[in-house]
């Protein structure tokens, strides 16, 4: 089956990474700038060894100071508790009123393992298998409250309908989780899962769990092949390929308005090649590059009808054209699962 046609207008995202920033104001200003350019989302990287604040904390701080921009922090799944990870990402979705995503990442270094002293560093295949399990249990926990679980029924004195809360009883290789979640189902149902699918191990996670897959390449034909492969494999896992966006992740360093216009040209060329659904721009200097993108790249793309002029929706899923997921525990006929 052919891959679904690339999305038009294109989806745009940008990274806010840049060393040595600890002030909330720095990140808020960048996110507002990205919002001015009607980008779909911003990403913020993280690792336990790099100097810097926790990415999810930073984007939670940014959430109330912005209105539309999607917020996607990198979240480590190797040295953290899957239950806490699921709760924190769900809470980011609540405080941003439906604009949260997360990008699961793993740790394979001895340096990070020694900061925790719980387990030795493990191979990529092993920790990415675990990351897949974390993504799986996170989705189960987000679904463990049905949307209408809170009833406040005065007649029976019940705050919740416990038939609409579910134990998840997840048994993974390295952890188990009983559930249900403590955080009610987030506004988007599932916050958006973004996976950098460039390497083979995370690609196996992306085809199973990602809503957005990033592919690092500078060649539109290679990107197109990668996109088709990702969508085929997603289909092979029983997923609807229409529910996976593939963004080319490209390094960007702009010095002049002319550079920014050239970037718009490149985006247009890739779109003409039907290579990807959009772009994740890895900015060399977020302050400088984002300002130029908003000033020159965005207007050119808008003029060519390759980029929207406003946000038609309120949630990150709406920006990406992704529907709100059906709850895996909810049953249409009202027949309850055995849990509760």
């Amino acid at each position: 089956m052919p891959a679904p046609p690339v999305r038009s207008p294109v989806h745009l995202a940008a990274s806010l990474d840049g060393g040595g920033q600890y002030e909330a104001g720095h990140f808020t200003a960048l996110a507002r700038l990205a919002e001015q350019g009607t980008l779909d989302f911003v990403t913020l990287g993280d690792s336990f060894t790099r100097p810097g604040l926790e990415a999810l904390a930073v984007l939670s701080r940014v959430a109330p100071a912005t209105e539309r921009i999607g917020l996607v922090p990198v979240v480590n799944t190797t040295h953290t508790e899957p239950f806490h990870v699921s709760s924190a990402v769900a809470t980011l979705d609540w405080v941003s009123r439906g604009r949260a995503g997360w990008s699961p990442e793993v740790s394979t270094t001895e340096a990070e393992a020694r900061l925790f002293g719980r387990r030795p560093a493990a191979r990529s295949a092993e920790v990415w298998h675990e990351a897949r399990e974390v993504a799986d249990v996170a989705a189960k926990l987000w679904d463990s409250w049905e949307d209408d679980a809170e009833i406040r029924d005065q007649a029976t004195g019940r705050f919740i309908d416990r038939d609409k809360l579910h134990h998840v009883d997840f048994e993974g290789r390295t952890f188990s989780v009983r559930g249900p979640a403590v955080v009610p189902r987030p506004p988007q149902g599932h916050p958006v899962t973004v996976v950098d699918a460039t390497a083979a191990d995370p690609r196996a996670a992306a085809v199973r769990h990602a809503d957005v897959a990033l592919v690092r390449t500078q060649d539109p034909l290679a990107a197109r092949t990668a996109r088709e492969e990702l969508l085929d494999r997603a289909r092979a896992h029983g997923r609807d390929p229409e529910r996976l966006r593939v963004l080319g992740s490209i390094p960007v360093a702009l010095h002049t308005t002319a550079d920014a216009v050239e970037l718009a040209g490149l985006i247009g060329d890739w779109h003409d090649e039907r290579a990807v659904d959009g772009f994740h721009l890895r900015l060399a200097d977020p302050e400088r590059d984002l300002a130029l993108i908003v000033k020159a790249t965005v207007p050119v793309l808008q003029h060519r009808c390759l980029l929207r002029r406003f946000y038609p929706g309120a949630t990150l899923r709406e920006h990406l054209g992704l529907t709100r997921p059906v709850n895996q525990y909810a049953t249409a006929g009202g027949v309850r699962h055995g849990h509760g």
Partner: protein
Amino acid sequence: MATGRSTTTGRNRTTQTNATTRANATTHKNATTHKNASTHRKQIHLAAHFPGADNTTVWADPRSRSQIDFSSFEHLARTAERGKFDFFFLAEGLRLREHKGRVHDLDVAGRPESLTLLNALAAVTDWLGLAATMNATFNEPYEIARRFASLDHLSGGRAAWNVVASPDAFTGENFRRAGRPDRVDLDQGLDSARPGETLSTRAAEFLSTARELWDSWAEGGTPKPVVHHGRHFSVEGRFGVPRSPQGHPVVIQAGDSGEDREFAASAADVILTRHGTLEAGRARYADVKGRLARHGREPDDLKIMPGVTVVLGDTAAEAQEKAAEIRRQQVSPQNAILALEQVWGRDLSAYDPDGPLPALDPVPESALVQGRAKIANAPQTAARWRALSEAKGLSIRQTVIESTGRQSFIGTPDAVAAELDTFVQSDAADGFVLVPHLTPGGLDDFVDHVVPLLQERGAYRTEYTGTTLRSHLGLRHPVWKG
């Protein structure tokens, strides 16, 4: 959508104005401190507790709003900041409570992840301290030290951590460590869920490891590698976050046992306690403060703040009537049977809440209730309830309502302000954590009517004089132990 935009713009303008004021506050700090010192009146500290997942939170009231929407948290935090409170406080819940093997459905359930929520609140407040309860049992020191340091940076020095330990197997079913308890946990018996579990050696080492990480960056300097090999934790490497505005976030400890007090005296900045009589408060205050010298600390280095409930009325009688009505709301017919089952340890669902107490005896060590503190001395409690019921001719529900603790302060704003001040001036407390029964407007009346009276008495700040939570609490900047 248009309304949302204009509101946000308005808020941003406020934020900018306050940010300017914040910068000026540091300059004026010395002058204000001097003025306060000249009056010699002990200052009251206040904190706001977000209504939690138990039956003290009345969800059936028409004024009750969402327990999860950000707007509810924003409302209470802004109210607290309007009232010049020291901090906003979130409790923790890592597993939904269960009753008879099923999720408990009578009380408020569900909550956000605390630190994520507090980082968001930092965006809509400028001065208010932001305190989260974080468990030492189901977390690791490196990650928690990093998360609190991040909050402290992102809030400009307003972070606080209430350190708790709760090694119960029921909660553990949601976590890695439950499946793989380490050596020490096995020694101590992870399965022995103890009511009111106090700070274990794990929590103490957890905190001291976090402090080593926070201290590994000199102010404005470069990091030194941390090497910690203790009984519970092994942490080696460089900490990723430079020294935060407060140096160390404010450390809170909750509890009333001797062990709790000793731990607080050695390591905490604030101790949260139960509220009791003035005399009991004074005895505790003297005991806790008396422990500080042994740890090389001054009495002012640890603030004692009981958790309290307040009911206001235009007259004393009206306040009493409102207080009684709140207790009735807190004990629904279904909650009355549940409370009875907690004490009796058996299924009593067939009993009529408006009928007499059961003649059956309680079952000791019942596993009926999971995820909340067990009732100590259930047989004694049962005997007391029976006696009360017989003496006053009360039904099950009336007995439970009657046995429910009275609110701590009930009266007119004048009377309540005077009483609060008395507790602080006579050294029964340094301040209070206010626990409202309504989300999110439960402290509106207190802030509008009692705070101005405390200010008139000269016992409470009229403006914030510093920018950090440490400065609100009058705590010293921690000495760097690099």
